[in-house]
C-alpha cells in the first residue's frame, strides 16, 4: 500500500472561501432586483374582501395603488372615523386622484403607459358612495384598467 502515505500530514486542508463573496453578491443582486422600495406605510385599516375569481397581477411596476378605509387609531383624532382615501403616504381627497394618476403615469416608461393598472385596496366595510366617486375620478383620468383587490376565499 505504498500509495497511501500514513506518515503524511493528516490535517484537513482549509476550505477555500474566496468565492463566498461572489455567491453572496449574486443572491444580493437577486433581492435588489425583486425589491420594491415604494412600499407605503398604511394609514388606513385594510381588510380586503375575499372572492373565488381572483386573478394574480403580473408586473408590479405597472400597478398603482389607491387605498380606501377607516383611518388607523393614531390618525383618528385628526381625521375622524369616516372612510378616507390614501395615496402614497398621505390622506387625500377625491379631487387629488386625477393629479396622482397623471403623475404616476408620467413616471412610467412610454411603452408601459397603456398597460397601467390601478389596484383599489378597499376595506370591506367601506360604503359604495366614496368608491363610486373614486371610480368616476379614475374614469376622468383615463385610468380604466382597475382591480378590486382581494384575497382568495378558502
Amino acid at each position, binding site marked *: 500500500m505504498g500509495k497511501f502515505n500514513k506518515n503524511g500530514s493528516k490535517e484537513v486542508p482549509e476550505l477555500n472561501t474566496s468565492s463566498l*463573496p461572489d455567491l*453572496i453578491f449574486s443572491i444580493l443582486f437577486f433581492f435588489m432586483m425583486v*425589491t420594491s422600495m415604494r412600499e407605503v406605510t398604511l394609514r388606513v385599516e385594510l381588510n380586503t*374582501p375575499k*372572492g373565488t375569481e381572483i386573478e394574480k*397581477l403580473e408586473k408590479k411596476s405597472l400597478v398603482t395603488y389607491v387605498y380606501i378605509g377607516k383611518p388607523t387609531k393614531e390618525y383618528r383624532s385628526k381625521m375622524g372615523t369616516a372612510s378616507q382615501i390614501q395615496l402614497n403616504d398621505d390622506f387625500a381627497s377625491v379631487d387629488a386622484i386625477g393629479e396622482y394618476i397623471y403623475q404616476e403615469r408620467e413616471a412610467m416608461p412610454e411603452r408601459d403607459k397603456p398597460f397601467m393598472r390601478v389596484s383599489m385596496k378597499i376595506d370591506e366595510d367601506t360604503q*359604495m358612495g366614496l368608491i363610486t366617486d373614486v371610480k368616476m375620478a379614475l374614469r376622468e383620468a383615463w385610468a380604466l*384598467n382597475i382591480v378590486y*383587490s382581494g384575497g382568495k376565499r378558502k
Partner: protein
Amino acid sequence: MAKKKRKVPGLNGSSLADISFILLIFFLVTTSMDTDTGLVRRLPPPPDPNQMDEDVKVKGRNVMVVSVNMNNEIMYYYGDESKRVSEMGVKAEDLRAIAKEFIANPDNKANMPEFHPADPPLPLLGAYPVTKNHIISVQTDRSTSYNVYFQIQNELMAAYNELRDEFAMSKFGKHYKDFHPESDEALAVRGVYPMKISEAEPKKYGGN
C-alpha cells in the same frame, strides 16, 4: 534620493463577505414578494359631454339589473314590462346561476337576450349565434357596503368563467384556462360569452 521599490501588500478581502451579508439581509427584510391579487375589471371611458342627449337604446330583454339598497338587500330583474322576472332579497351566491341562465339563454326565452350571428365572424366558429347585446348592470346605493358589491362582482365573473369553461369543454374538449389567452380557441370562447358588466353610476333609492 534613492527610491526603493516597495511591494504593495495585498488587500485583505475576507470582510467582503460580511459586508455583502449585511446588504443581503437588508434587502431580504425590505423585500415583499407577495403579489397583489384581485378582480380585474375595465371601466368605461369618461362620458362624452357632446353625446349626452343621444341616449343609447337597449332593448328591455337584453338588460339584467342587479341592484343593492342601503340595507345591503339584493334584488334583480330582467325582461320587458309584460314578461318581467324580478326577485327581491336574493343572496349573492344565488346570482351566479341566475346570471348564467340570463347570459346563455339556453331555452331561447322571450324575456332573455336575443341571439345574433357573431359579427365579425368568430375564429373557428364563424357566425355563431351569440347574445352579444346583453348587459348586466350593477346598481348600488351610496351607503351599500363594499363587501356586498365585491361579492356580486365576484359571482357575476364566476358566471362568465363557468359558462366559458363549459363551452370550451363541450366544443374543444379543454378547459378555458388551459388555452393561451390569445389563441383562436380562447378568442372564440370569449366571443361567444363577452363579459358585459356595466359599471353604472349609483342611484339614490329613497331615504338617505
